[in-house]
């Protein structure tokens, strides 16, 4: 019809603020309605779970939380779930970060889960070493000595005064000082430095198993490391966090976010389809007019 032609053109080139509004509704409404959807656990998440489940009480884990506030909504759920799992297994945690804006987030997660939920003792059951600049250099140097890289913890306490790191072995050396004294490296990363760098610099050099959680956009790249067994498990984005929360039986923001994410994805798919339908209709109309 002659009157509808401009409408189709206008729809194809609609002001993007209408798209923003549609997305806003699609993402926020499910959060208020709290629709629970059944969650299927992928093999990569099962691998992550199995690696932590295999730990024994008293084992030591290096927890590298390499993220910042930008990725907090996506990664905090998996960090809290991983800490919950580790604390439940009575595993001792050495936590640190290679991102400058990371320490307060790591502190908040440890306070909430390790201290708040499981009443763990700082210094004995877990330590927070804070941030160190140096990226891959720090990763490599940590393999040689934790205390050389982190002489003090996040609060300024010398690591020699923290029971977890002050223990001596039979030979008189430090019982916990390198990656050889650690059973597993848990890395939650938002980008660089992150999973890829830990695998490249640490996995082969020090032969320590690594499990990783990352943003959804980085996950496809990390599949290569899963398939080559350089990573034992992978949590990809908020859906990975939701699957892991299901495995440990502690639903959190990952699970809550699934309904919003589901509707958000469906909305984008519908928008793509509508955009293409409009494109082909307008293209045919222009050909006919010509």
């Amino acid at each position, binding site marked *: 019809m002659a009157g509808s032609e401009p409408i189709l053109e206008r729809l194809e080139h*609609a002001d*993007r603020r209408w*798209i*923003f509004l*549609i*997305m*806003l509704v699609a993402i926020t409404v499910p959060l208020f309605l709290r629709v629970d*959807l*059944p*969650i*299927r656990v*992928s*093999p990569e998440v099962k691998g992550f779970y199995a690696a932590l489940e295999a730990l024994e009480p008293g084992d030591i884990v290096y927890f590298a939380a390499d993220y910042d*506030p*930008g*990725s*907090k*909504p996506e990664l905090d759920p998996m960090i809290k779930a991983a800490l919950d799992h580790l604390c439940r297994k009575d595993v001792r945690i050495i936590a640190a970060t290679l991102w400058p*804006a990371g*320490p*307060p987030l790591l*502190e*908040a997660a440890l306070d909430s889960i390790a201290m708040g939920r499981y009443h763990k003792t700082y210094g004995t059951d877990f330590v927070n070493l804070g941030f*160190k*600049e*140096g*990226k891959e*250099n*720090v990763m*490599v*140097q940590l393999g*040689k000595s934790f205390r*050389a*890289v982190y002489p003090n913890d*996040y*609060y300024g306490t010398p690591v020699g005064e923290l029971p977890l790191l002050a223990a001596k072995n039979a030979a008189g050396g430090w019982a916990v000082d390198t990656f050889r004294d650690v059973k597993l490296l848990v890395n939650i990363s938002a980008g660089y430095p992150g999973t890829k760098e830990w695998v490249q610099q640490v996995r082969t050099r020090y032969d320590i198993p690594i499990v990783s959680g990352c943003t959804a956009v980085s996950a*496809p*790249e990390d*599949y*290569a490391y899963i*398939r080559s067994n350089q990573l034992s498990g992978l949590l990809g984005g908020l*859906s990975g966090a*939701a699957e892991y929360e299901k495995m440990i039986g502690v639903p959190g923001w990952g699970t809550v976010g*699934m*309904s919003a*994410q*589901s*509707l*958000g*994805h*469906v*909305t*984008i*798919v519908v*928008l*793509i389809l*509508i*955009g*293409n339908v409009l*494109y082909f209709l307008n293209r045919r109309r222009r050909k006919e007019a010509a």
Partner: protein
Amino acid sequence: MRREVPLLITMIVGWFMVLEFFFPQAEKWSSELQNWAIIMTALASVLGVANVARINMLKVSRRDRDWRYSIVLLAGMAFMVLLGTVFPMVRSLFHIDSSWAIGGGEFMGVTYGPYRLSGVAAGTVFNQFYDFMFVPMQATMFALLAFFIASAAYRSFRIRSVEAGLLAIAAVVIMIGRVPLGREIWHGLPEISDWIMSVPNLAAKRAILIGAALGAIATGLKVIMGIERNFLGGD
């Protein structure tokens, strides 16, 4: 000499770090070099602060366009440096024991504060600004991506060829298959989505990774051999 000395340092250190990987005796020296690198990158943060201060103070002094925003930036920066670095250093140097806390009280049944003026840990003024200004602003910027990807997909994702059609099908399957709703629509979607991620996606990612890695190695070789010098500024 201005370009030759940096080139010589690059060559010596670059080759040393490559060969160190194969000769265990060199590990001690490479460890030392890496410690130097850690110290230098930490110094870069100081350089960054000085640079920001210099540029914005110049803007204010010359009343350049938007100079008022520079005042806000400088004030914010000075305030956070004071709380996070200067006050702790002063307390440590002069062995001040008192807590230097401010604020505190009760609001709608919730007790808050007092907040320490010195330091960056939980319970400090620094941490309050971090939690209630920095975190929401950063998270908001990241959240923009959801809206931008929707508008970019609506505007640009056009099936103009067979390849674009295959891409669209793969994108739809992955997007729906990776969320719980996908399984509700059809139980096979998650399995197909997993297969796409594990086989074609993996193959393509590996190929790009190998290519990019070779390119990076080639660039590294060029830089440490002095073949590539343009990054130092012309010939």
